[in-house]
């Protein structure tokens, strides 16, 4: 199969399906062959569901013959392995759940299935969405298709690697402190963390209840819009799920960005930023100005306290894992176990104060968003981390540009904005007001259409 098909967009596949130039069965077979060829090196998949994929593809073909025009019909996808899948093992990237087969689907899995997608399999995640698999772990970590010696980011590591390598057309991710946007940035793809409550988390393994988000990952902004459309909406099974109306995300992409106000928070997001990242970011701002957007600097001083979000995440993660940690500590990776146990040491007072700091960040960010429509920042301060550094047990939690939007719950999009001199992808982060995914996607799409970055492919 040509790269052209492996990297086709959702719109391109749909057009070719409906004109009978291509069929979902052909595309599925070709992607399965591509996975067989490349995944032994990339380790993006933890479970391949070839028979299920062929059955889904045949069903899509039958529906197409009947005139079914759903945009995701026959689109090959895979799910991060913390999304529960009925009858298909869901490991959480962990030895603890290595053989667990759930008897129900996560809500988002069901919604994509109802939209007619083809399920290729499950994608490796950092262990319980928090801990990179170190050597000796039950599961191998995914590798970055742009450079196998670098991590693809995490925790939605398999999703990022599989998309960059042209193994799937769309994938789910989850994001507690950047786990959709980080792999999107490191793998040169697009990832959207929607507003807290926009997409259901029912049936997705928990890391931290008040910070967890589900969302789509793809290779273009338009593909993310299609995939979000099929995920978004109220779900009574997720207590945080919102009843806010769902916009038409794809239709919103047709509008230009003239007159839109883009704020650049000059504090926090530029501390320790690699010069190459900064140059690519400033060039992206220039492109957006050229498209007619008004770019201005803003300040959000309270973001200096962003790192306190770790107290919330670790305390909530320990609460979720406490019983298994006490009963089966040996089934957790060493570094992950230490991090989770660190959460046990956070006092109630410290957790409460961290939530108060969070409320202050939310209020200050909301005030800034009265004067601008979107915030723009580099997604990550540096390109993809080498494995040699990431697997150092002392590596810890580096400062990150992504948690501010888990803290506030605002929608945040990561998309390619260049490459480092060593050939690693660089990324632009765009964040908007709650439930204004359409605006964020619109700005991202306008930028993407004006630049070539999303058309570059790694040599796999």
């Amino acid at each position, binding site marked *: 199969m040509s790269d052209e098909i492996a990297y086709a967009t959702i719109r391109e596949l749909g057009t070719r399906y409906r004109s009978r130039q291509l069929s979902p069965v052909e595309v599925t077979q070709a992607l399965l062959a591509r996975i067989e060829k490349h995944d032994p090196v990339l380790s993006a998949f933890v479970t391949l569901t070839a028979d299920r994929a062929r059955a889904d593809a045949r069903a899509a073909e039958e529906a197409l013959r009947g005139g079914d025009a759903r945009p995701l019909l026959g689109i090959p996808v895979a799910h991060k392995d913390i999304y529960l899948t009925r009858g298909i093992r869901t490991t959480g990237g962990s030895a603890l759940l290595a053989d667990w087969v759930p008897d129900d689907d996560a809500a988002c899995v069901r919604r994509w299935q109802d939209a007619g997608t083809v399920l290729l399999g499950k994608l490796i995640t950092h262990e319980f969405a928090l801990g990179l698999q170190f050597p000796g772990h039950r599961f191998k970590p995914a590798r970055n298709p742009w450079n196998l010696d670098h991590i693809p980011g995490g925790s939605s590591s398999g999703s990022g690697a599989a998309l960059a390598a042209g193994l799937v057309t769309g994938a789910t991710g989850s994001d507690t402190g950047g786990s959709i946007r980080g792999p999107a940035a490191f793998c040169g793809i697009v990832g959207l963390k929607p*507003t*807290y*409550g926009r997409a259901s988390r029912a049936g997705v393994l928990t890391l931290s209840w*008040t910070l967890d988000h589900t969302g789509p990952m793809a290779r273009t902004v338009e593909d993310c819009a299609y995939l979000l459309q099929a995920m978004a909406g109220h779900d009574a099974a997720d207590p*945080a799920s*919102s*009843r*806010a*109306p769902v916009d038409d995300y794809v239709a919103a992409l047709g509008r230009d960005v003239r007159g839109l106000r883009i704020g650049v928070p000059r504090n926090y997001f530029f501390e320790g930023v690699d010069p190459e990242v900064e140059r690519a970011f400033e060039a992206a701002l220039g492109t957006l100005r050229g498209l007619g957007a008004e770019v201005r600097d803003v300040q959000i001083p309270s973001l*200096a*306290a962003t*790192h*306190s*979000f*770790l*107290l919330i995440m*670790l305390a909530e993660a320990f609460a979720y894992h406490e019983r298994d*940690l006490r009963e089966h500590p040996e089934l957790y990776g060493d570094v992950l176990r*230490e*991090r989770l*146990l*660190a959460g*046990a*040491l*956070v*006092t109630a007072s*410290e957790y*409460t*104060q*961290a*939530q*108060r*700091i*969070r*409320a*202050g960040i*939310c*209020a200050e*960010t*909301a*005030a800034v*968003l009265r004067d601008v429509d979107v915030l723009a920042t580099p997604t990550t301060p540096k390109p993809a981390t080498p494995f040699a550094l990431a697997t150092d*047990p*002392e590596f*810890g*939690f580096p400062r990150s540009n992504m948690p501010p939007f888990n803290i*506030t*719950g*605002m929608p945040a999009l990561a998309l390619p904005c260049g490459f480092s001199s060593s050939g690693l992808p660089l990324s632009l982060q765009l964040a908007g*007001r*709650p*439930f204004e995914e359409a605006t964020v996607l619109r700005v991202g799409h306008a930028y993407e259409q004006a630049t070539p970055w999303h058309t570059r492919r790694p040599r796999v």
Partner: protein
Amino acid sequence: MSESKELTLDEVRARMRAVGVTIAENRLAMVRKLLSDALVHVRALDSRASKTVEPAVRFGAGGGDQP
């Protein structure tokens, strides 16, 4: 409770005893650093002097004061 802004190793050990968890002694320094970094702003906060901010976070579609 220590008045220091830095969490000490003894404080980490005391907290471990209080909650009944065990972390290998050679990894305590890493855990101390992880928590100390995260605690910097919490420990700098004078909760009596700062204005009242409830710990609740709301996510309203109407775009109120809080995202």
